[in-house]
C-alpha cells in the first residue's frame, strides 16, 4: 500500500461522509496532508492529540481527522485550546485557523497565546480572503487588491502573521506554502516537537474567490505564484531590501528557548501548596 494510502486509513475518519466541503483545487487538502504526515513522524498517539479549529474553510478541517476534535467559534479556537491544554497538559493541542479567524476576530487571542508561550501549535492557513462567506477582504489581503468588499481596491495594509507571532513572543515561528508541500511537512513536525507556542503560517491560494476577483488564474497559476514569490529566509539575509519587496520569507523565522507557560505554572502550584499548607 502506498504511504499516503496508509496514512489516510490511519488518520481520516471513515464514518464521516466524504466528499469534503472544500472547492476542487483548494490548498487546505495539501495542508491537511502535511499535518497528518508530520503527526505520523512525531509518533503521537491519536488519543493524545486534540485538534481545535475556529470558523471558516480551515475550520472544517478537524471533522475529517480521527483525533479528539473541537470545532469552536469564530476566532476563539486558541481560547478553547488554552483551556484544554491547561486542564490536561499531557495532550498535544494543535489549532488550525484561517487568516481572518486568527488575526482579525481572533487577533487578540493570538497575540496573547504567543505572549504566554503556552504549549500549543497554531497552524494558520493564510489565503488572504474570507473564502467561506464569499470573498471579503481579510487583514492579510494585500494593499490595492480586490475582494467583494473592496470592489475598487483594498486601502488597508496587510498583517504579516509570522512576524507578528515572533514579536508577540512565540517560541517557534515558521512560514511555508502549499506549493512547497514537503517543506510544510518538516515545518509542522518541528512545530509539533517544540515546547511552547509554535506557529506555522501556511500561504495558500483561494482561486474561487481571491484568484477570480484579482484575475490570478486557477489553482495551478496561483501555486506558481507561491513558487515565484516565496524566498527562503536564509537567502533573504544576503539580499537588498529592494529585491525583497514583492517576496515573502519562508522557512523557520524563529526557534528559541523561552519559558513555557505550563512549566512556570507548575512552579506556582508548588509555591502555592507550600504557602497554603503552612
Amino acid at each position, binding site marked *: 500500500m502506498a504511504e499516503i494510502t496508509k496514512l489516510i486509513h490511519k488518520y481520516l475518519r471513515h*464514518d*464521516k*461522509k466524504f466528499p469534503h466541503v472544500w472547492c476542487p483545487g483548494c490548498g487546505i487538502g495539501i495542508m491537511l496532508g502535511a499535518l497528518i504526515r508530520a503527526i505520523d513522524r512525531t509518533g503521537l498517539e*491519536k*488519543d*493524545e492529540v*486534540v485538534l*481545535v479549529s475556529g470558523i471558516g474553510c480551515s475550520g472544517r478541517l*478537524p*471533522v475529517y481527522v*480521527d*483525533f*479528539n*476534535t*473541537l*470545532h*469552536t*467559534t469564530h476566532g*476563539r479556537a*486558541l*481560547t*478553547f*485550546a*488554552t*483551556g*484544554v*491544554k*491547561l*486542564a*490536561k497538559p*499531557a*495532550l498535544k493541542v494543535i489549532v488550525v485557523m484561517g487568516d481572518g479567524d486568527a488575526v482579525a476576530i481572533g487577533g*487578540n*487571542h493570538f497575540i*496573547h497565546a504567543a505572549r504566554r508561550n503556552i504549549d500549543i501549535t497554531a497552524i494558520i492557513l493564510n489565503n488572504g480572503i474570507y473564502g467561506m462567506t464569499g470573498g471579503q477582504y481579510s487583514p492579510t489581503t494585500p494593499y490595492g487588491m480586490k475582494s467583494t468588499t473592496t470592489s475598487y481596491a483594498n486601502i488597508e495594509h496587510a498583517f504579516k502573521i509570522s512576524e507578528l507571532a515572533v514579536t508577540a513572543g512565540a517560541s517557534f515561528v515558521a512560514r511555508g506554502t502549499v506549493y512547497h508541500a514537503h517543506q510544510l511537512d518538516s515545518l509542522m513536525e518541528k512545530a509539533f516537537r517544540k515546547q511552547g507556542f509554535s506557529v506555522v503560517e501556511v500561504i495558500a491560494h483561494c482561486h474561487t474567490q481571491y484568484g477570480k476577483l484579482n484575475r490570478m488564474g486557477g489553482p495551478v497559476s496561483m501555486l506558481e505564484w507561491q513558487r515565484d514569490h516565496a524566498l527562503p529566509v536564509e537567502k533573504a539575509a544576503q539580499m537588498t531590501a529592494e529585491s525583497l519587496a514583492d517576496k515573502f520569507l519562508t522557512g523557520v523565522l524563529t526557534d528559541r528557548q523561552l519559558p513555557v507557560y505550563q512549566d512556570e*505554572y507548575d512552579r*506556582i*502550584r508548588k*509555591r*502555592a*501548596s507550600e*504557602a*497554603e*499548607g503552612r
Partner: protein
Amino acid sequence: MLLQGNEAVVKGALRAGCRFFAGYPITPATEISEILSVKLPALGGTFIQMEDEIASMGAVIGASLAGVKAMTATSGPGFSLMQENLGFAVIAEVPCVVVNVMRGGPSTGLPTYPAQGDVMQARWGTHGDHPVIVLSASTVRECYLLTVKAFNLSERFRNPVILLLDEVVAHMREKVALPTEDEIQIVDRMKPKVPPEWYIPYEDTPSGVPAMANFGEGYRYHVTGLTHDVRGFPTGRPDEIGPFISRLFRKISQNMSEIHIGEFYETEDADVVIIAYGCVARSAKRAARDLREKGMKVGLLKMNTLWPFMRSAVERVLETARMLVVPEMNMGQISREVKRVNQGKASVIAVNKIDGTVITPEEITRRIMEEA
C-alpha cells in the same frame, strides 16, 4: 464563620470539585478571581487570567471538555461578551458554571452599585433557541449552596449553569454555618460505559442527557458549534436537526423538579404573596413579617431558580393569593413571567427600582398597603 458572598462562591466551587477558573477582572466579581488565584494552584488546579471574557468562556469550555470542572465569574459587561461561547456550551453540551454578579447597567453603568437587570440576558443573551439554567442567591449561605448546586446541575444535564448574584449579596458579610462534608452531595458527569467503538456522543437517550467522554480518554469524537447528528458531525437534515434541538429542551423540561429551588414562607393562607429573589428577597421577607404583625395575610415566594421559570410554584401560591407583588431592581423582568403564569387570576403589582439602591422592606410594605 464570617464570610462574604463572593468568598462563599469560592468555597462552594472548590467543594463541588471546580479545579479550573478563567476570568477577566471586573467589579464586583473580582474577589472570586483573586481568591481562586491563591487556592486553585495549591490544589493542583488552574487559575488563568485571560485577555477578555470571550477568551475566559472559551478556556472554561476547553477545560471542561478535557474533564476538569470549570467556572468563570464576571459582571454585566463581561457577561455580554461571554454570550457567544455560552451558546457553544449549550449546543455542544459542555458542563460549566458562570457567576454573574449583577451591577447597574446598561453598558458600564454602575460598577459598584447593585441591580438585577441581567435576568433576561441570562435567559436569552446568547442567540438562538436554547435551554438554560439560572440560579439566584439571596444570602451568603445560599452563595455556597447554590454554587455547589450549579456545578451539580451542569454536570447532571450537560448544560451551562448561570449563578446570578447582585452586588449586595456578593459583597455582604454574614455569619454562616456551612454544611458538613457529608451533608453535601456532589454530582459528576455520566461517562460512557461502552467501548469507544460503540460510543455515540450525542445519543438520544430517554433521559435526554448523553454520556460524556473527556478528551484524551480513548473516545475520539467531534465537538462542534454547528448543529450536529448523534455522532457529533455537522448536519443539515431536518430529521436530525429537529430531534436534536428538541432533546436539548427536553433534558431540562422533563426534570424541572430537580432544578427548581425556592422557599415558601407563610404562603399557605396568604392573600398577598411577594415573589422575590436575590438581595430583594431579604427585604421582602421582612416586609411579609411586618405585615403579618399588622394582621395581614402576607407570604413570600423566594425564587432561587429563575430559569427555567418556577411556573408550578407561582401556580401554587395562586391557589390562595389575590395579589402578587414582585419587587425587582429592574424595570420588571420576572414580573412579566409572573403575569404570564397568572393569566388574570390575581392582580400582579410590580415594584421596580433602578437607581442603584436596594429596595427596602418599607418600600414593599408601603406599596402593599396602598394596593390592598
